């Protein structure tokens, strides 16, 4: 149906765009819930495990996506611990499904959410928490009425980076999701397919769209930072 507006893109391509958007949205929402407690713990703890946890969270920044994808594939496969567990739950196996893609993407994009939020928590420092305590606010109360509002710029940065990074993934998707139209075939994989098939027009449109999207996201991010740093 979108084909009428862009004759060069087929329905399969629009399905890939829509799937990418859905994946990035779901992953971003999950990451905010998973990443926030990790970021809080990393920002506040004096535990000797801080370094270990911080390094594990940051691993996807440096690992080839294929390495991460390979281990996730093994873990979620029929003989892996996650695979056994999902089979026991009766939901079958995750690889080559949309939920499997979501799980893999959460791991892959975790550092992009944890680190800005952790930085924001660290920048707040202990003083506002102490002030809130002397004003009768319990720790939970303080978190919602002081920490969250003060860390808001960090959360916005984290959500933008988490979303954009999930949109931009390729290796992990290919390893975990494969290339199933409307299920796991996201834009980056679709571009790969078009290039393989020498369909350069479609590849140009999708690649150009990704370039524009990424540039606009980063432009928004950096001009927002400049604006807040002037305040």
């Amino acid at each position, binding site marked *: 149906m979108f084909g009428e507006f862009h004759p060069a893109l087929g329905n399969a391509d629009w399905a890939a765009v829509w799937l990418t958007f859905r994946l990035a949205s779901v992953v971003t929402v999950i990451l905010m819930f998973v990443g926030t407690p990790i970021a809080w713990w990393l920002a506040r703890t004096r535990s000797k495990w801080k370094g270990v946890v911080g390094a594990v969270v940051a691993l996807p920044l440096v690992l080839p996506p294929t390495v991460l994808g390979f281990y996730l594939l093994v873990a979620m496969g029929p003989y892996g611990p996650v695979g056994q567990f999902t089979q026991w739950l009766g939901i079958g196996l995750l690889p080559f499904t949309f939920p499997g893609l979501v799980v893999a993407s959460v791991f892959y994009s975790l550092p992009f959410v944890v680190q800005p939020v952790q930085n924001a928590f660290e920048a707040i420092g202990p*003083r*506002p928490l*102490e*002030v*809130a*305590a*002397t*004003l*009768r*606010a*319990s*720790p939970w*109360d303080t978190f919602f*009425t*002081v920490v969250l*509002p*003060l860390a808001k710029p960090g959360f916005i940065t984290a959500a933008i980076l988490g979303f954009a990074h999930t949109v931009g993934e390729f290796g992990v998707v290919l390893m975990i999701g494969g290339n199933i139209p409307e299920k796991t075939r996201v834009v980056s994989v679709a571009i790969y397919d078009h290039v393989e098939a020498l369909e350069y027009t479609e590849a140009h449109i999708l690649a150009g769209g990704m370039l524009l999207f990424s540039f606009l996201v980063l432009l928004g991010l950096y001009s927002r930072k400049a604006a807040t740093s002037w305040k």
Partner: protein
Amino acid sequence: MEMMVLPAIHAQFQVIWPGFTLDVDLDLPGRGVTALFGHSGSGKTTLLRCLAGLERNSNGFLHFKGEIWQDSERGVFLPTYQRPIGYVFQEASLFPHLSVRKNLDYGRKRVNSGHKVSLDHAVELLGIGHLLGRMPDRLSGGERQRVAIARALATSPELLLMDEPLAALDLKRKNEILPYLERLHDELEIPVCYVSHSPDEVARLADQVVLLAEGRVIVTGGLRETLARLDLPTAFTEDAGVVIEAVVADHDEAYHLTRLDFPGGSVVVARRPETIGRRLRFRVHARDVSLTLTRAEGTSISNLLPATVMEVADADTPAHVLVRLDAGGTPIIARITRRSLDHLGVTPGKPMWAQIKAVALLG
């Protein structure tokens, strides 16, 4: 009739850090301003934080008006947010994302007991009514600190803790806030612990003094008695002096002078704006007091008090001594040279005249 003020707070803390140990055991009265006084690193802020429950790794015991807030031996620790305290931090600590009004409301709306200090009263006391709609970054340093004090008061605290609230401010801002703190002192009926390293602030605001050095309590007692003691550590004697509370007795309009009366005598100072009958505190530094055997004639110094020598002690240099005198019930300290001590034959019990070269009026 003055009532005996029973100790309402019993505090005993040990905090051990690398290179610093706080080890204190003290009783504080149930009202009035207690100055926690000492140099930086003496442990006064740590002690204040222990009272607030902000030092989780403190060991000790804290009893407040019949309630146990901390008893480390029995594993009792009332978290800060459950203690009925108000705390004013050294630097302005307003929530930057909330307006002045919402900052004031933050603590107040979390307190459900009857409001002894109404918000209006706190706002009026600190003179911040015109600032309510502003955001903290639109306030001056002095205004921010006044809002922070009002915010603490608006929770109707049973104990007010202030950590050098004026230290981060310049002299002009200090003088802007001090009158408000003096009003607090006069109007609040709760105990206040006030951390300071400024003798003038202490002299102006405090009723009791707890002198700390290297994590220990050196001296504790009433303001006048404590400052009049000669056995304070050397570090404090270079600034030795007494605080005298007087009443404005008379104005001499021709010479633009004001007479201040106190038990044991009076002093004449440059014309003050206060009306007759108002109470005023002033400070007499030991270095501004000299001694004569007879009432000096032909001197430009007009403030002469008959006084009896009580005690002689070493001063901060070997060339000087500190002499404590009693002027009809008011203690005076003089810092004179050891040579003068011998020439004049100053010994306890000797009647002399104290010449006061200068007084520092507080407020």
